């Protein structure tokens, strides 16, 4: 980690630094091996080999076959492609889509757009931990349901959905099942066969791969339309000159991330629990998300009476980088739809803090955060008109 030594980066769910090994894999394709993979000559072949080698690695990371992996420009494009692609290709079969109310905006806003195109969308509720109920899902399936899109793990609260059960229900009802696994890669072991997943989105920069590069897994035989039309790349299903350096990097990153899951989760889990335990000692503090069915790197708490953006600014001043679900920190001025869907009251949503751990974080980092946070929270509480007398020190 090369953020200035004193800084503590705890926003790994937002993005991660490219790993050294990944940078080394990627950089030679910028200047030396810059050929276009579609070109017939040797320089093109080198690039093509890099892309196919990465495809193999992505496939093996999720139990898929190589020709089921399509490279995209990231998680957002993968989500858009999966959902619009299935919707448009299967609209003669039906117009109903099921998703959850805590999906990433790349899924939710795509679904909302489809509603404008004549599709019907059911947004499943979640319980207070952010869990979708398989019973609810079963009940939501209609004769004309063509797609279920439920994320594997949530980006804000880290809740891991019962994907295998959802996949089984989808299969039994012959409905395509898409899962946004952007946050899950490198944290949750994935097997698209066992989990009955038909489409899966992933994004390189969430697991120390490059930004601007992702993939969509599409099960063989799936009826899906193309989203980006043009050249014959990606077996004519995703046009555009391949981002060879990024694809090569993504391949390396997913290989490393998935091969190290067990070891990495052990470390992260210990840090996570230490952090949660310490945070909950601050009065009027609540844990968001599921206590156990959660990503090993995700901590999300709310502090009553204070607002997240000002919390982040004070943390930043101390060199601690984190995120919040407060509306004040979102360009839409809407508070976190995820926490709201979990039933967290609006005023409390604004006081949420997400600390997402990564490879670079240490116990020392955790302890420093735990040393610094209480006084920052107190400072803001003293400033807030909402804080009851007993929680003031001033």
């Amino acid at each position, binding site marked *: 980690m090369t953020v200035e030594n004193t800084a503590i980066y705890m926003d790994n769910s937002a993005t991660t630094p490219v790993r050294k090994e990944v940078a080394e894999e990627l950089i030679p394709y910028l200047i030396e091996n810059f050929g276009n993979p579609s070109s017939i000559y040797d320089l093109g072949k080198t690039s093509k080999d890099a892309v196919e080698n990465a495809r193999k690695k992505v496939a093996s990371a999720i139990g898929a076959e190589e020709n089921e992996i399509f490279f995209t420009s990231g998680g957002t494009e993968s989500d858009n492609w999966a959902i619009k692609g299935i919707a448009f290709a299967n609209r003669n079969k039906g117009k109903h889509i099921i998703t959850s109310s805590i999906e990433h905006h790349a899924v939710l806003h795509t679904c909302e757009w489809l509603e404008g195109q004549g599709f019907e969308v059911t947004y499943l509720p979640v319980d207070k931990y952010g869990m979708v109920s398989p019973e609810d899902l079963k009940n939501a399936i209609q004769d004309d349901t063509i797609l279920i899109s439920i994320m594997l793990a949530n980006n804000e609260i880290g809740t891991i959905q019962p994907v295998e059960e959802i996949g089984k229900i989808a299969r039994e009802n012959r409905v395509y099942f898409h899962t946004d696994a952007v946050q899950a890669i490198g944290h949750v072991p994935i097997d698209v066969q066992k989990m009955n997943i038909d489409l899966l989105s992933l994004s390189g920069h969430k697991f120390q791969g490059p930004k601007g590069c992702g993939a969509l897994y599409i099960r063989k035989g799936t009826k899906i339309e193309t989203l980006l039309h043009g050249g014959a790349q990606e077996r004519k299903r995703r046009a555009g000159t391949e981002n060879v350096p990024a694809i090569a990097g993504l391949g390396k990153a997913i290989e490393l991330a998935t091969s190290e899951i067990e070891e990495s989760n052990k470390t992260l889990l210990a840090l996570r629990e230490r952090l949660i335990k310490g945070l909950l000692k601050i009065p009027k503090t609540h844990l968001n998300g599921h206590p156990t069915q959660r990503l090993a790197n995700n901590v999300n708490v709310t502090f009553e*009476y*204070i*607002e997240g*953006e*000002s919390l982040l*600014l*004070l943390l930043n*001043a101390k060199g601690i980088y984190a995120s919040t679900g*407060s*509306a*004040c*920190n979102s*360009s839409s*001025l809407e*508070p976190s739809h995820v926490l709201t869907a979990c039933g967290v009251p*609006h*005023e409390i949503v*604004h006081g949420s803090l997400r600390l997402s751990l990564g490879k670079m974080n240490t116990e020392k980092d955790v302890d420093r955060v735990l040393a610094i946070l209480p006084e920052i929270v107190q400072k803001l509480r*003293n*400033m*807030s*008109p*909402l804080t009851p007398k007993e929680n003031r020190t*001033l």
Partner: protein
Amino acid sequence: MDYSAKVMDHFTNPRNMGSIENSDGIGEVGNAKCGDIMKIFLKIEADRIADVKFQTFGCGAAIASSSMATELIKGKTLEEAWRLSNKAVAEALDGLPPIKMHCSMLAEEAIHEAINDYLKKKGLEPWTE
């Protein structure tokens, strides 16, 4: 966040933070749902703002706006304080990001509320313009 140095200064070291016991006027605007509540306490002496304090639940811009607005009206006549516009607050802070301009609005409104609270307590007509 694209905050000016002035905003960051007033956010990190807010002036006039706190409350006034037995204040002459209190204005509270905003709501927790939107993530911003601003509360202004006034001490009035001879139609002048002898003291002012604020409490704010909100983002950096909201806190900085509260701090700056209270600075700007301290010692001023009620009329002068009433005429403090949100634009003036924002300008005094060397500008606010467009998406945060409503925070300076809040400061203007809170001052209006506090002045009217004072006027009402005195049995006077509240001001509107």
